[in-house]
């Protein structure tokens, strides 16, 4: 193997595809990426997605080992190190954000490789003292064990995905219902949601929009899928001039969301509105 022959060569810098023994067909260091290592077998567009799909350096190492049908216990460390460095370089060349763990692993691999080139010390007390691969092997085994466990866990039937609870309405029951929430409780709950996650994308929903949203709900409720409603009538259902504006905005929002459709029997006749779709046969075609 090319890299093994020259232990002084900084492995993290140069990547060689040893198609022919010793022949360097691909270099990264100091040069733009003109060509990906041929053993990656991945179209460049897919590469980013592919690399992101690794859960970390152990996952990547495991992939490299498994791809060659090798046993974890017999890792050809020089070859695996060479391939690992190849991926790291490609990730860097593509300016992918590289977690520090990948670089730590690169250093570890380089260290193991160099130690394996040294002759075995006579006084080595145990195999583990001697063979620098053992700690890594143990880590890989353990990771693979849980990787498999995670896959099996995901394969188990799960509530709300594969299994569904069977419940019935309790509406008819008598007795004290739970209390209504206070405004404070509600706001606290919402603050918790916003605090923790994704609402950054929804900050545009400001106060004045609430009236529009409310009106959207009211208009949706009023509309029918079979029957058209009068557009002007809907506008005037609100209060005063502001009501018209709010209703108008609400209808535009609904139209934009594809929830309503417009109709006009002839030019200049009243504009009419109804719920979109919802015809039973259409539904069955979709299903």
């Amino acid at each position, binding site marked *: 193997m090319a890299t093994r022959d020259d232990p002084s060569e900084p492995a993290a810098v140069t990547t060689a595809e040893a198609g022919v023994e010793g022949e360097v067909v691909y270099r990264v260091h100091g040069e733009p990426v003109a060509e990906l290592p041929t053993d990656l077998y991945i179209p460049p567009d897919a590469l980013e997605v592919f690399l992101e799909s690794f859960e970390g350096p152990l996952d990547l190492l495991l992939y490299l080992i498994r791809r060659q049908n090798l046993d974890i216990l017999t890792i050809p460390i020089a070859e695996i190190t060479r391939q690992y460095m190849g991926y790291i370089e490609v990730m860097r060349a593509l300016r992918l954000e590289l977690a520090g763990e990948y670089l730590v692993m690169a250093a570890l691999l380089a260290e193991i490789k160099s130690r394996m080139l040294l002759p075995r010390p006579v006084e080595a007390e145990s195999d583990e003292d001697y063979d620098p691969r053992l700690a890594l092997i143990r880590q890989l085994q353990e990771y693979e064990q849980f990787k498999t466990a995670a896959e099996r866990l995901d394969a188990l039937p799960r509530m*709300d995905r594969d299994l569904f609870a069977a419940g019935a309405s309790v509406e008819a029951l008598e007795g004290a219902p739970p209390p209504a*929430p206070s405004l404070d409780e509600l706001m606290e709950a919402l603050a918790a949601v916003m605090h923790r996650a994704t609402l950054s994308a929804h900050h545009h929903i400001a*106060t004045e929009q609430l009236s529009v949203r409310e009106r959207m709900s009211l208009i949706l409720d009023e509309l029918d899928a079979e029957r058209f409603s009068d557009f002007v009538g809907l506008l005037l259902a609100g209060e005063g001039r502001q009501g018209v504006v709010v209703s108008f905005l609400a209808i535009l929002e609904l139209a934009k*969301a594809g929830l309503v459709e417009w109709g006009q029997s002839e030019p200049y006749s009243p504009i009419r509105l109804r719920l979109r779709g919802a015809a039973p046969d259409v539904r*069955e075609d979709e299903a």
Partner: protein
Amino acid sequence: MNDGDSRAVAPGDGATDDLLRAVELAVEAVLFAAAEPVPARDLKAACADLGEVDQALLDTALQRLQEHYTGRAIELVRSAGGYRFRVRPHYSGNVQAAQPERPQRLSRALLETLAIIAYRQPATRAEIEAVRGVAVSSGIMRTLQEREWVRVVGHKEVPGRPALYATTRRFLDDLGLSRLEELPPLEQIRDLADVASDAGLTLAPPGAEESAEPGTSRRLDFDPDGDQEYFGPNA
């Protein structure tokens, strides 16, 4: 099984009997899993892979289902929105007694769901889940509707036509509000959240803000399937 004698379907027709039985059970499954009354149209859609299910066949299946639950603790009822199972009022006491020491408090999941609907309405369940980051159970949606704080105001025209939920008049009344815009503006709530986190209060587990940055981490925990921008940046 004590399936009552089917009437609308010609007796002795084996193939139809099998279909009828299959429809009855599929409908049973769908009704028990649903968060709200299921319209006949959706019941038919759920049976689409069983064969040709027309209204008469569905009606017969529903009738058989209803008969099967005669004398049981639940009953199949029809309301404006469709069909559903409900616990018979006779068992109110037993249901109450089953939750002895649990004070009837509203769960955090329910409150969060309600708050999101109030601000994002009309919203689908998937949209609520995208905001919350975790699943919303049918049970919660059922409770919110039974308390009449939330109702279905339409269906989104995407595959499956998911229900669009909105808050009700009753919701405003129970909160002592006359209109939705009397709710505090979202900005203010966000400030509240920030203040709480600055003060080290535990509104959410520590480190929550890390993933609030879009794009910094892969969040594959759920699939927002592009619904996000649906009611999104509206000019």
